[in-house]
């Protein structure tokens, strides 16, 4: 008998409030190791709020309240003591690119340095590997000392991805990463994400329904603070959606 390995992330009864505004309600789901878990849904669905709760970024948002259980790698993230270690294991890419006002090199080397790596050879190796993976190396390899915050929007977004990869995370949270990236580069990054699936688990929040279809193993549909349904991506897109609202959204009939 084959027993399924335990899920990497398991969410039970998750609700998120901002003051008395409810952003997410009663979400139950599991994210398996080494899968790409897609989340689609219109604006206001609570997708970003969900990601925030996963690595306890709710702490940075005054008034944000998270109820329910979230476990990551078997540990309850609500009670984890060493938040810094938790966040190091979870990489995040925000919708708007954030190139830190450091050199390109330092942007990518920041996380390794924070965890105590100081050897130049080792840092060089990490920086090059992560920049290559984020499809940015060729464009910046001659100006690694230039400011990361002065790159173009699309380049900054890839820099942000490289920075998230430099943490060597087990879980990568991508929030509409392609919003500021041109289609060609988006395709290149998507290829990278497919490769990364071998090594890590990805939660992909996207506004592009077709992007979820191309990448995600399973896709969930969020609407108005509810997780309407979760299904294997192929089933969902080939007419297997249970809920009428999912069908409407996938076909672009909405609102």
């Amino acid at each position, binding site marked *: 008998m084959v027993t399924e390995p335990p899920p990497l992330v398991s969410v039970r009864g998750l609700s998120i409030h901002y003051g008395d505004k409810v952003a997410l309600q009663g979400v139950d789901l599991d994210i398996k190791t080494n899968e790409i878990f897609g989340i689609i849904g219109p604006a206001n669905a609570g997708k970003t709020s969900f990601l925030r709760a996963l*690595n306890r*970024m709710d702490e*940075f948002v*005054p008034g944000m309240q998270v109820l329910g259980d979230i476990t990551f790698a078997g540990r309850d993230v609500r009670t984890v003591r060493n*938040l*810094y*270690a*938790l*966040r*190091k294991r979870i*990489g*995040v890419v*925000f919708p*708007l690119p*954030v*190139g*830190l*006002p*450091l050199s390109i090199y330092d942007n990518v080397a*920041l*996380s390794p340095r*924070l*965890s105590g790596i100081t050897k130049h050879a080792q840092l060089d190796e990490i920086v090059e590997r992560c920049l290559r993976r984020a499809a940015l190396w060729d464009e910046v390899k001659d100006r690694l000392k230039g*400011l990361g*915050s*002065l790159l173009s929007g699309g380049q900054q977004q890839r820099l*942000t991805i490289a*920075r*998230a990869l430099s*943490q060597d995370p087990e879980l990568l949270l991508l929030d509409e990463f392609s919003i500021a990236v041109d289609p060609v580069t988006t395709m290149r990054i998507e290829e990278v994400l497919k490769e990364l699936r071998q090594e890590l688990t990805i939660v992909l929040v996207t506004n592009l329904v077709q992007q979820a279809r191309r990448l995600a193993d399973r896709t969930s549909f969020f609407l108005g603070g509810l997780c309407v349904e979760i299904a294997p991506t192929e089933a969902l897109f080939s007419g297997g959606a249970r809920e009428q609202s999912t069908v409407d959204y996938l076909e672009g009939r909405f609102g």
Partner: protein
Amino acid sequence: MTTIDPMFVATPLEKRNHTIQQLVRTLLLAVALLLVVPALLILGVLVVEGAPGLSWSFLVDPPRSNGAAGGIGLPLLGTLWLTAGALLLALPLGVAAAIYLSEYARDNWLTRTINVAIVNLAGVPSIVHALFGVGAFVHFLHFGKSILAASCTLAVMTLPVVIVATRESLQAVPKAFREACWSMGATRWQTIWRVVLPNSGSGILTGLILCVCRAVGETAPIMFTGAVFLRSMAPQSVFDKTMALSLHLFNVSTQLTDVPHHLPFSVALVLIIVVLALNGTAIAFRMRLRGRKKW
């Protein structure tokens, strides 16, 4: 024959808006000029009346005849001691307090009280600071009347502006940078040290400039805590009393009779030059920092 596209012919409304805009511009320019004129006049008078009295020996010689003759070597030296002392105390403390208030403090009543207190502290008259200095540093801490007590008093007086200037520049660093750092597991201090502080240099320099201006120029706070009208020796340690330029100027212009006409002007000119020189350096640094666009 060419006809002008009616779209580019100004309508009466557009014409009126344009006239108003020109009017406002001229008015604002006039106000700005008006503010500069007194400053230039003062500087002009000082240069015309005081410059002839300047010489190397005037700058380095000690005062003679109670200050009515000789140079200003000792007061100048004393002012540098006092200013350096005030800076050494006020900058680290002020920057530390600003970091706490901007980066660590939660928005609760205590923080708000502290913030209000700081703003009000900046408005306290310097003579009150002087009395506080006498009570706290000269007597309670037993510093006696000394450079140390005077520098402490100046530091307390300038702390609020250092704090406010630094806090503003810390908060000018976008929150997104902090969140990006935190989300990868950096502690608050790591974030401050690697990302926030390196981009707040210009605010810290502004604090320094304001601190220098007041430390060099104030008379009351040092008069009761460490500065004296006359002293024949250069200070040997921070526990000595000292002469100071601002007090010396007060002395030669109001306390002494038969002072040469140009002397007060020359002292005042040196006072202004000291401020301008110290600030000029800081401003040059700040311009270099600001010139490099970071985001």
